[in-house]
């Protein structure tokens, strides 16, 4: 017999310790001919699913069978290290519970466990190994542990023998042999493996230095003295270890028969009572929903769809899942929290009937290709967005309903990226903080932007130095490694049995949050279902808008009640008059709208999906725009079969689902393969491996009679999609929010702007731009005023206008706009006012108990004008006001008036910006107009009317700066003067020349030429001047998006 089984092996999921990922370890062990490998990460099973998938890949793709054993190693408080392996399902559950307990009692990223914690425990399903270190083989606590093991679990325990060609290997072996005789426990050979190949040795040292927060050069004896902790060839193992120890390892491995594939996961069942099955209950709710939606009866086509969906749900046993989502959505509705589902399963007729989505599948002529893929055993996928400020209520509801043992968040594995890898490697290699800053600043944030060396060289860094060469080599190794576990944004895992029997649970950063040790890919791979409970600011805004409209008109709107196909709304969208509208307010979207001219709901779906890095890089935008201008009959399709896939998008693949469908229809992929392609699409930049698909796609398409040219084009498009490809199922849900917010902006501009302001920060524009836009739409915006304002922005009736027919309320800015005013102080003010208006500043300060900070904030924001005159006087008066403890104390005698300078218009504007973030007075550039005109600067409006290629000067406050990754280094800046905005395009060469001005100027003067494409205008900058000095102390800050 000549085999070996490795029973002790840490992966990169033992953070800052293991120097290989689980896949590498499992595959290498398989290649070396190991019979089994145990992944025994330190108090963790986070690498378990990835290891399982690697073992299955080894079997299916490489034809090598290797047994995967799951286990963990724990450092006991007594200083003894033990390894536990799962023999069977019971043992696996015991492991999960033990890890959970050890993790839950420590802060995030740590664990704590002692011998006493283990002693009383049922570990009948585990194998236990004690791992004595060299020279500690005689310690007292080691004897205690061994004595306990030989008494309690004599047949499941062993003493792990790890030999690494160290000086005292012989003595170590001898002392363990003595222990073996004394306690009657077998010696078990282990490699105490930290990496799959010895070439990872340097990385192992890097991790050690990181763990001890030192440098490699100073880590001394904390580093391993050699690189022997790798998966060694069996021949080497045989040379080093006594045969009986190797046999004991093989025997122990044979005794472990647990496989992750055997775990049984059940969805919570409390929503179902004994009298009905889950399927029946779901059917009941769906039919109840149908009755409300279609009181006159369900349209035949829809009925068919509902029935077929219900049938699939029944067959796949997913009813519990839909019921759970339904329950959460119902709870949100009862609390008045807006929510909206998205994802393939969400945009189904069933979910429409259940109220999970407001997208009406019958009205929007959409195809649902991917409701639930039966071929793949993937759980259904529903994301539900909630109002961002109230999502926490829903999370608390879930915890309360299912209990903390049965509900936890999924983990997100944070991976090393170029900058974080450079930081950590740089630190342990002894670079100074500034050297590290410089190096990492030169690197892209993404892992897929080409060679790191090239990136550094571009920044003029000499990459020839030996030290930097080594660093780069390590950084390259490190990128993609797991770094730590974090919490998923909102992916909840629910289970019928306590979760910690299925997977270890640990603490998250947030107090009272727990996460499981698996991420969403792991969950999908082992068939655990998760519900994404996400936060979306626009939902808060829409709900607030509904509230405002109701308070003003008495009419309650809902997402479902807003009429579709509204012509004025589409007209507004086509003009790109969309500031504040969900998604289509960005500059890229706005330049697309006049060209795409959305006229129906599906156009919005396309708009949402197309203006994204994926389709833009894939070159799909222009073909689609061209196709829109053609007669539909003139559009050619490569085949009839593909016409079916691409007709809705005029022959251009836009959605992720379409790419999968093309692979299936044209290249004969089955569902699993198509899904594999989708996953590779998402990951290829990180992991590569897309090229193998190219051949399969081409040969498949050739077989179906498509030429290679077309196949190559499709493949390039797939590559372009990269990780950004947008699924139609999400675009549809977003498009609905686009339509609703656009409709609200069109018909209720004051309420919509107020709701946006009350939901800040969100979206693309700051309060200043939103208010300017509202005023351009004839909304009367009024400044914050202690006599009238609430904390939030509110609507006020315009005197003399009948509120009945065409209500055009005014927008009263809230006290929340006043910088430096706390919500508490504002609440006190509003409460005091409700008992009677303020007589004067002293009365205000006294009754609202305003502290110094609140008093100053109100005066400087000019919110006291009604009580104290201009802001100078207001500040002077309120500085003298005091809160008197004794209400009956005599108020201070009146002072003689003094003459303070009146604020100049410029001062007022500057103070408005500084203390409100916006002004309702003139635009500051109006005050500078004379100066600017002398310099030959045009108004923005005049500039935007120039003919193509005409050159001129234009100046404005910078409001938005962008350098999108998809634009190859081009910078977009929006500047704004009193007549409107100008969109400036800055090519990289110009940017390099004016870098400082572009990134820091508040007032930019640009000399450039007009680039006009129909109604879409850009100023292409040639020279740029920082004119901020003209503004003096004006503190309007632009909102930077990078």
């Amino acid at each position, binding site marked *: 017999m000549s085999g070996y089984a490795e029973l002790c092996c840490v992966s990169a999921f033992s953070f800052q310790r293991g120097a290989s990922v689980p896949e590498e370890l499992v595959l290498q062990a398989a290649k070396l001919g190991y019979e089994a490998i145990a992944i025994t990460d330190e108090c963790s099973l986070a690498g378990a699913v990835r290891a399982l998938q690697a073992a299955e890949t080894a079997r299916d793709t490489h034809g090598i069978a290797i047994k995967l054993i799951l286990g963990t190693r724990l450092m006991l408080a007594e200083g003894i290290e033990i390894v536990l392996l799962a023999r069977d399902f019971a043992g696996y559950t015991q492991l999960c519970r033990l890890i959970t307990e050890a993790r839950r009692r420590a802060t995030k990223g740590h664990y704590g466990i002692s011998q006493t914690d283990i002693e009383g425990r049922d570990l009948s399903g585990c194998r236990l190994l004690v791992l004595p270190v060299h020279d500690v083989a005689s310690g007292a606590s080691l004897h205690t542990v061994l004595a306990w093991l030989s008494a309690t679990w004599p047949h499941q325990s062993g003493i792990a023998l790890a030999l690494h060609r160290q000086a005292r290997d012989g003595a170590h072996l001898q002392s363990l042999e003595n222990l073996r005789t004394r306690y009657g426990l077998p010696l078990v050979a282990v490699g105490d493996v930290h990496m799959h190949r010895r070439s990872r*040795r340097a990385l192992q040292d890097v991790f050690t230095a990181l763990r001890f927060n030192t440098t*490699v050069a100073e880590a*001394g004896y904390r580093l391993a003295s050699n690189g022997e902790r790798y998966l060694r060839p069996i021949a080497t193992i045989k040379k080093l270890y006594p045969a009986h120890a190797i046999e004991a390892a093989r025997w122990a491995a044979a005794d472990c028969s647990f496989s992750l594939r055997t775990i049984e996961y059940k969805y919570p069942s409390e929503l179902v009572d004994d009298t009905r099955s889950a399927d029946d209950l779901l059917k009941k709710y769906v039919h109840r929903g149908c009755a409300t939606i279609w009181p006159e009866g369900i349209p035949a086509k829809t009925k068919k769809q509902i029935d077929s969906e219900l049938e699939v749900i029944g067959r796949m046993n997913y009813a519990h899942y839909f019921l759970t989502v339904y329950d959460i959505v119902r709870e949100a509705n009862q609390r008045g929290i807006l929510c909206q589902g998205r994802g393939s399963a969400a945009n189904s007729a069933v979910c429409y009937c259940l109220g999970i989505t407001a997208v009406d599948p019958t009205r929007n002529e959409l195809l649902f290709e991917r409701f639930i893929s039966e071929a793949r055993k993937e759980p259904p996928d529903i994301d539900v967005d909630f109002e961002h400020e109230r999502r926490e209520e829903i999370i608390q509801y879930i915890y309360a309903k299912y209990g903390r043992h049965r509900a936890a968040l999924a983990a997100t594995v944070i991976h090393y990226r170029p900058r974080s890898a450079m930081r950590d490697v740089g630190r342990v290699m002894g670079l100074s903080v500034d050297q590290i800053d410089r190096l990492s600043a030169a690197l892209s944030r993404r892992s897929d932007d080409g060679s790191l060396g090239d990136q550094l060289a571009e920044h003029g860094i000499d990459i020839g130095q030996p030290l930097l060469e080594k660093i780069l080599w390590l950084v390259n190794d490190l990128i993609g490694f797991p770094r730590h576990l974090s919490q998923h944004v909102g992916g909840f895992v629910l289970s019928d049995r306590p979760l910690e029997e299925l997977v270890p649970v640990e603490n998250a950063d947030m107090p009272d949050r727990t996460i499981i040790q698996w991420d969403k890919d792991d969950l999908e791979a082992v068939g655990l279902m998760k519900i994404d409970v996400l936060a979306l600011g626009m939902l808060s805004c829409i709900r607030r808008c509904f509230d405002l409209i109701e308070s003003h008109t008495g009419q309650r709107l809902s997402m479902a009640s807003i009429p579709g196909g509204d012509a004025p709304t589409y007209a507004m969208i086509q003009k790109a008059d969309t500031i504040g509208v969900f998604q289509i307010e960005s500059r890229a979207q706005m330049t697309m709208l006049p060209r795409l001219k959305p006229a129906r709901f599906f156009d919005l779906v396309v708009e949402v999906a197309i203006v994204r890095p994926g389709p833009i890089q894939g070159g799909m935008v222009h073909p689609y725009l061209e196709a829109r201008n053609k007669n539909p009959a003139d559009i050619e399709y490569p085949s009839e079969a593909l016409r079916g896939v691409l007709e809705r998008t005029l022959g251009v693949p836009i959605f992720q689902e379409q790419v999968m469908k093309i692979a299936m229809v044209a290249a004969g992929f089955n569902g699993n393969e198509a899904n594999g392609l989708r996953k590779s699409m998402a990951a290829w930049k990180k992991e590569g491996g897309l090229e193998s698909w190219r051949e399969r796609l081409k040969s498949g398409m050739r077989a179906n009679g498509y030429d290679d040219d077309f196949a190559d084009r499709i493949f390039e498009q797939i590559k372009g999609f990269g990780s950004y490809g947008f699924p139609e199922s999400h675009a549809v849900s977003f498009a609905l929010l686009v339509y609703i917010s656009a409709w609200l902006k069109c018909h209720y501009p004051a309420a919509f702007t107020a709701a946006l302001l009350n939901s800040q920060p969100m979206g693309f524009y700051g309060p200043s731009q939103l208010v300017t836009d509202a005023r351009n739409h004839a909304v009367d915006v009024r400044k914050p005023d202690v006599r009238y304002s609430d904390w939030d922005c509110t609507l006020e009736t315009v005197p003399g206008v009948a509120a009945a027919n065409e209500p055009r309320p005014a927008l009263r800015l809230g006290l929340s706009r006043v910088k430096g005013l706390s919500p508490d102080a504002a609440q006190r003010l509003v409460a005091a006012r409700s008992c009677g208006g303020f007589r004067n500043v002293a009365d205000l300060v006294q009754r609202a108990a305003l502290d110094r900070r609140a008093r*100053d904030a109100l005066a400087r924001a000019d919110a006291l004008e009604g009580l104290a005159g201009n802001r100078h*006087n207001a500040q*002077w008066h309120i*500085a003298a006001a005091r809160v008197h403890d004794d209400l009956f104390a005599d108020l201070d005698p009146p*002072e003689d008036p003094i003459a303070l300078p009146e604020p100049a218009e410029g001062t007022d504007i500057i103070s408005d910006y500084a203390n409100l973030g916006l002004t309702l007075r003139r635009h500051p550039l109006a005050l500078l107009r004379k100066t600017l005109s002398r310099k030959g600067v045009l108004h923005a409006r005049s500039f935007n009317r120039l003919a193509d290629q005409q050159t001129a000067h234009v100046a404005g406050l910078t409001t938005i700066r962008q350098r999108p990754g998809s634009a190859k280094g081009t910078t977009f800046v929006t500047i704004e003067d009193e007549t409107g905005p100008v969109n400036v395009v800055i090519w990289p060469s110009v940017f390099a020349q004016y870098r400082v001005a572009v990134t820091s100027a508040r007032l930019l003067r640009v000399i450039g030429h007009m680039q006009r494409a129909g109604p879409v205008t850009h100023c292409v900058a040639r020279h740029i001047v920082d004119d901020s000095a003209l503004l003096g102390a004006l503190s309007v800050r632009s909102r930077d998006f990078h």
Partner: protein
Amino acid sequence: MWLALLFPHWALDSRGAMASQKALALVADSSLGRRHVIAASEAVVRSGVQRLMELADAQLRAPDACVLERRADAESAALERLAGWAWRYSAQVHVARESNNVATTRLVFEIGASLRLFGGQRALIARIQDNLADFGYRHNAGIGDTPAMALARAHAPRRLRSQPLARLPLSCLALPSGTLASLQASGLREIGELLSLPSAMLHKRYGAELLEYLDRLHGFRPHGLACYRPPQRHITRHELFGAVESVQGLAFVLRRVFIELGAVLRGAGAAIQTLKLALIHDQAPTTRLTLHLSAPSRSADHFERIAQYRLARLDLVAPVLEIGLATDQLRPVEPDQQTIEHDNSAAPTPGHWPAVLDRLRARLGHDAVYWLHAPADHRPERASCRAEQPTDSPTPSAAPRPLWLIEPPRPAPANLRFISGPERIETGWWDEATSVRRDYFRAVDGNGRQLWVYRRLDDEVATGSNVDTPRYYLHGLFG
């Protein structure tokens, strides 16, 4: 009359020549959360960098500038020294900055009394400015009747320097930031506008503090500043009565000098560690000797002994006329130094390392005496080194190591009998020069000596794992 000096770039300028040689330099400080610039060289300032700008922002403007870390201690020490410099112009020197805030680094001193001595205000100011230029300290200066007024002027922008106080911006005054903001928000811009307001109204709004400040500004109230006191270090000159021509004679004179020094030190409860002696000759240039003690001391006997050992190696170039003596900073005495005072030069006992060491070093030369240090390193040749001071060695490697290391290793003799091994040592990859990949063995040679030998793992690879005739190197003897 008071002179106020502000040093806006003190964090850089105080670093002296080393820092200012770097034409472009920023000093960064992370105490404000993110890293900010707190001082910059003139060239960097010209490229648009301002104090308190975020470091990243500044680097955009001055990409070539090197970034230095802040050293608050050194800044304080330099400020202390600068105060010592000001001492020569005034007995009333006030030096301060608030909680390490560099922007408030300032020096204020009374110059009215010194005007005559230095030839009038213009001459004095010119002289002070010359000094500061020599030091390389950028500064803003202001003169006023009171320290507060001088400071206000120093804060004024250059173009307003000649204006009367009333026309200076309010921000020149040392007002609490809240008070200043409140006054500015009331529309006030200039100091004169503030001064014209009724004090009752000001009192009501801003309390007594503001009025007291205004009183100090005008000199209606004492300035209340703490005065600087020069640092205590012992610097003396001893004139000899008649030239001393021999070392022995010199020793006799020095004895007196040291006794005096010892008395001073005892009186101050202090000790010193460095002594500089200047032997001033008639014709020849001064002979300078520096005596470093390995620990602070105040024992005259100790000083004398050390000096004697040092003098024994000295050839006098010329007769000595005068002896100068300067100590380093006086430091509070440490109690365990007590024993040295009673040391009657008997045999050294353990714990008297410093005295013995100083004697050995004075006799053998400083570098001839060192400690053996065992750094934690798996590489045998790096696991021991020389150290100037006794060090806390970490626990040495548990692995058996020979007592005698052969450095550099040489080819091992043939006919070895291996008794244990291999021990694989494979580390140091981060440093090409000292990277080690070896298998070590214990072996016995023909003479029965126990040797520590190794073979290189890289040889194995290079020669295609020719295990039959590996090359061995001798690296140590186990005795």
